[in-house]
């Protein structure tokens, strides 16, 4: 955090109607929201859409934040839910799994400074199921602990640990494929 005020204090100030606190909170978390949405969805445009949805709904939704969990945990959950809705609306899950980042490849691969790394990311993420993508987006993308990720996704820590081992397996398979090509 850049200053001493915690997220939770900011949220309290927002609840009491402090517009500057709200603006500070947005400023502080916009990129986090976008990054998580990107991790789950894999396309800049989709991630920006979801970020927009989350931000515009935030004023109302913050009223439901009771402070039982950390604000970031709560926010992660909001983003994950919004991203799931986005996926549900845009296509079936099966299709999304196949298309992770497809738009992104087309639009940004050329412009991307590190096209190879992005290609690898596309391939890696496409190899993961939606629940695994959510898990890595939280654990790796947001540096969440397994406990936090478990709370956000509403599953047990054991499940998160298992999913991470599945991720490692999937990456190993991918690496093996690359070797053989």
């Amino acid at each position, binding site marked *: 955090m850049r200053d001493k005020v915690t997220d939770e204090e900011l949220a309290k100030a927002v*609840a009491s*109607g402090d*517009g500057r606190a*709200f*603006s500070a909170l*947005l*400023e502080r978390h*916009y*990129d986090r929201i*976008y*990054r998580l949405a*990107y*991790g789950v969805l894999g396309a*800049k*445009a*989709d*991630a*920006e*859409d979801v*970020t*927009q*949805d989350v*931000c*515009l*709904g*935030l*004023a*109302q*939704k913050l*009223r*439901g934040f*009771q402070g039982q969990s950390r604000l970031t945990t709560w926010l992660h*959950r*909001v983003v994950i*839910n*919004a991203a799931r*809705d*986005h996926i*549900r*609306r*845009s*296509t*079936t899950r*099966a*299709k999304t799994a196949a298309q992770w980042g497809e738009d992104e490849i087309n639009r*940004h691969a050329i412009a991307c400074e590190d096209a190879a*790394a*992005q290609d*690898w*990311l596309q391939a*890696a993420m496409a190899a993961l199921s939606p629940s695994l993508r959510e898990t*890595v987006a939280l654990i*790796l*993308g947001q540096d969440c602990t397994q406990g936090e990720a478990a709370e956000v996704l*509403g599953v047990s820590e054991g499940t998160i640990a298992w999913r991470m081992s599945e*991720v*490692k397996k999937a*990456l*190993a398979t*991918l690496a093996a494929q690359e070797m053989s090509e």
Partner: protein
Amino acid sequence: MTDDLDKLRDALQSPPAPDAARRASVMAAAQENFDATQEFATPARPTKDRPHSAGRIWTRMFDMVSNAISRPVLMAGSSLAVLMIAAVVITPMVTKDDLVVHDSSLVGIHNMVTPGTGRERAATDAELAPLAMEPAPAPSDAIAAKRVRQQSEMMEARPAATGNALTTLNQQDTRLMRLDTDNAIAIDDRFPTFEKSGLSVTAETPVSTFSVDVDTTSYALWRMSVLDGYPLPPEAIRVEEMINYFDYAYPAPGSTEVPFTTSVAVTQTPWNPGTRLMQIGIHGYDVAPQDRPPMGLVFLIDTSGSMNDPKKLPLLKKSFSLLLGTLRDEDTVAIVTYAGSAGTVLEPTQAADEAAILGALDRLGAGGSTAGQAGLQQAYGLAETMVEAGQSARVILATDGDFNVGISDPDALRDYVATKRETGVSLSVLGFGRGNYTDTIMQALAQNGNGVAAYIDTLAEAQKVLVEEVTGSLMTIASDVKIQVEFNPAQISEYRLIGYETRALNREDFNDDRVDAGDIGAGHSVTAIYEVTPAGSEAELVDPLRYGTAPDTASDEWAFVKLRYKQPGADESQLIETPVTAGTNGIAPDVVNFATAVAGAARLIRGEDLGDWSLSDAATLAASAQGADPFGHRGEFLRLVRLAAAQSEN
């Protein structure tokens, strides 16, 4: 391997940078939303003027909002006029209370579509009109999503005032999409606490009160979603509407003096060995078709361009010809259409003259935009002549929801329907077609018009609503039906009402005859299921209070069920009371098991966690409880659940 994880971490932590301009405009719009919530925040209202069971989705938003600290009311004076237009596009007729919530979401919609610009706000009726002229098949969600994106990209280039129908169409999609998004987010707000808020601790809140609901829309929507494979937000599933789709053959009342029977049964919960299910079934007396008084029906048929779809006008025509077959010769039928201008297609005609009626139906064609209000007025005019002729009259509105031209004041229209109800003309609403986002209006209109809202997706559904249940749909036998259950804390430590979230009433509203509630038609049955936790069960989720009030252990009753209703037209309510014990077993096992299967499946479909219990288990339970199933509805449910189970495994 760890290297791969690190690589993935680096990639995920440095995604392509978000667009700076969009970031700024989103943040500005979000801030605007925040300011709006602050400026107009008002304390929660008393329940009495809550929109009774109107606009379900919006009611949910309402619930979500009212659970929070205070109720944001976002109707900003300066943008009111424009917001009303948007409200007309999406939900032309809403109650005043609904409108408040709509507008709060529409502020978001506008901002979302054009953050930081005022262009969208310049949209006018004229600009929106072309929409209705274009046949507008529901775009696939993927296409719609792309359009949203294109829309935001086109924003800068698009001229401020455009007459381009395609662009306008995109805007419409965008709005609908966004509306949906907003809605979905709002409901997800409950995600972390939904289970808990559904659970009540008997020692704290021993009394549960709700209004009955005989609508079945959710079931038809779900069926369409399973069969067509298009996604349905889980929030669209109202568990009670799934359960109440089926006829459970509860015992019929002996006389019309007490118009209901109340049946209760307690059974084991299939998904939780520590809890029990308490099923309450209410059955209204049935009226044989030959015993019902002669009736006047005015079909008010939407023939706007958007109805030009095999699942709309053609299905509607077939449905009404089915209905004709169930009418008595003395009944009269009239037809009014509305599209562009409203017109009477068939003057009141005796049902015996089938050829004339079928001929008029046959000649209907879709085209033009929708002049709903004028159509409604003409239909009511005809219905009133029927009332003068001594018949009870009902307007049956059939539409895909494009009730969007010519309505300047939704509030006045709502009142109009309610006033006409007083003169003896009631209103039922039949929804047709896919991508119908106006469930809200249909419900609100039917509720205000003392009628039933149903959704017709197939001819089989038309058969069910218009033939099998015709007397129930056309003849109300009791109004303002409320149920209150008091649990005995000595026996039951926790309980959860499955479904009816949008129908909750305050405890004190039960005895308050001024508080409106749902109506029941002839032969209708209503089923409510509580999941209860016997005191001391391992399934208790909340620890007992150390200093709690000592419960009265003298009674072995589990609960006391009270039902209030009014005879049609009466102002004072009547009371029916039924005690429940652990051994209460007044419903046939097949009926209980089937209702349980539907309730469990509905909870799974809307994303609730029932432990190891899956849709396959629901299918097994439903298969074991098919009963006689004369119309095949239970069999259809079984097939759909199996299909849904297979889909969810993929």
